[in-house]
């Protein structure tokens, strides 16, 4: 069965506002790697659909410069019906993707013109004594290659985006939403390095990103990158990291990473207590019940 993408149908529209509906294809590509045996639509794919539909509805020509108030309260599963509401004004696209189970994704996309492409740079040096990269992500959803450095509070890994995926355009530029997943995989890399040796990597589900800043209009397929996660709070359940990604030499420390980042933001995730369990992000979260 060939992978397919959802087809959004416009059900209502007004000036600067549109509502669309679609179903997540059961054969949506790349879900077998996110995660093996437990397919969940990654948050960045939901944002990617939002950007595509916003382009179509509002014919914008500005670049994405940031994501704000991103929230992913409910896991989106293959086959689910979803409604996408978009509105546009003052250089911001607001979106909400929801269905019978609740809100899958919501947030704002900041748009502006004048963002300059970044310069190419050689691959970050990977140290020979590097820690093992352990990720729950597999197949086309495994974007990191190796660990550059790991301490109890921070992990840097190398990354590369490959072709033959829906998020790489014909000109080799990647959809802006991929930075969300790259930053999320930096958190996963830290979790894998910090976990006890021999245990399978725990799955984490992205639940929030208050603000992600983009400093380039697009990452390019095949270019070598580094990603870094600095621990903010939590080990299991709700966790948060300050994440950065960039190119060229691996960052010396967090200020260096933030200074040279092509994208950065603080991300929240829900990390399963045990790799076997299949809690959704909205279940078992702290400080609520």
């Amino acid at each position, binding site marked *: 069965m060939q992978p397919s993408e959802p087809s959004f149908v416009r059900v209502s529209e007004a000036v600067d506002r549109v509502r669309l509906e679609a179903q997540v294809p059961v054969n949506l590509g790349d879900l077998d790697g996110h995660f093996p045996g437990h397919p969940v639509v990654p948050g960045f794919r939901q944002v990617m659909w939002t950007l595509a539909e916003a382009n179509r509805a509002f014919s914008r020509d500005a670049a994405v410069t940031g994501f704000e108030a991103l929230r992913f*309260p409910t896991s989106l599963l293959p086959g689910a019906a979803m409604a996408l509401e978009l509105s546009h004004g003052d250089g911001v696209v607001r979106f909400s993707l929801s269905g019978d189970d609740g809100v899958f994704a919501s947030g704002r996309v900041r748009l502006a013109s004048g963002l300059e492409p970044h310069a190419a740079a050689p691959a970050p040096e990977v140290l020979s004594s590097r820690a093992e990269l352990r990720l729950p992500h597999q197949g086309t959803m495994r974007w990191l290659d190796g660990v550059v450095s790991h301490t109890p509070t921070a992990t840097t890994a190398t990354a590369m985006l490959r072709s033959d995926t829906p998020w790489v355009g014909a000109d080799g530029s990647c959809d802006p939403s991929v930075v969300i997943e790259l930053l999320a995989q930096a958190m996963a890399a830290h979790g894998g390095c910090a976990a006890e040796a021999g245990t399978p990597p725990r799955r984490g589900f992205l639940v929030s990103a208050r603000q992600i800043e983009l400093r380039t209009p697009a990452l390019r397929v095949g270019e070598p990158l580094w990603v870094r996660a600095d621990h903010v709070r939590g080990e299991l359940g709700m966790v*948060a990291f300050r994440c950065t990604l960039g190119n060229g030499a691996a960052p010396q420390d967090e200020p260096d990473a933030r200074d040279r980042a092509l994208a950065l933001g603080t991300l929240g995730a829900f990390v399963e207590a045990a790799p076997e369990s299949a809690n959704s992000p909205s279940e078992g979260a702290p400080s*609520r019940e």
Partner: protein
Amino acid sequence: MADLTELETEIKAIIIEALLLEDVAVEDIVTADPLFDTGLGLDSIDALELAIALEERFGVTIDDDPDRNQQIFASVASLASFVDANRSK
């Protein structure tokens, strides 16, 4: 008991800033009202964002203890008491 009015107002501003609430002003948040489910209607994701902001601003440590956090995050008043007793900046 210390007057925490100033701290409560600052915490209200932090809530709005941390959660990027667009249509809520400091005056709209009632100090004693529940923050979760009813009241402002915050959820566990908001609690995470709020914990990040409070830890950064006040140097407090908020552990992953659901029962304790339910008390701390009950209202602006309870948050202010917790911050006042535990702040390091």
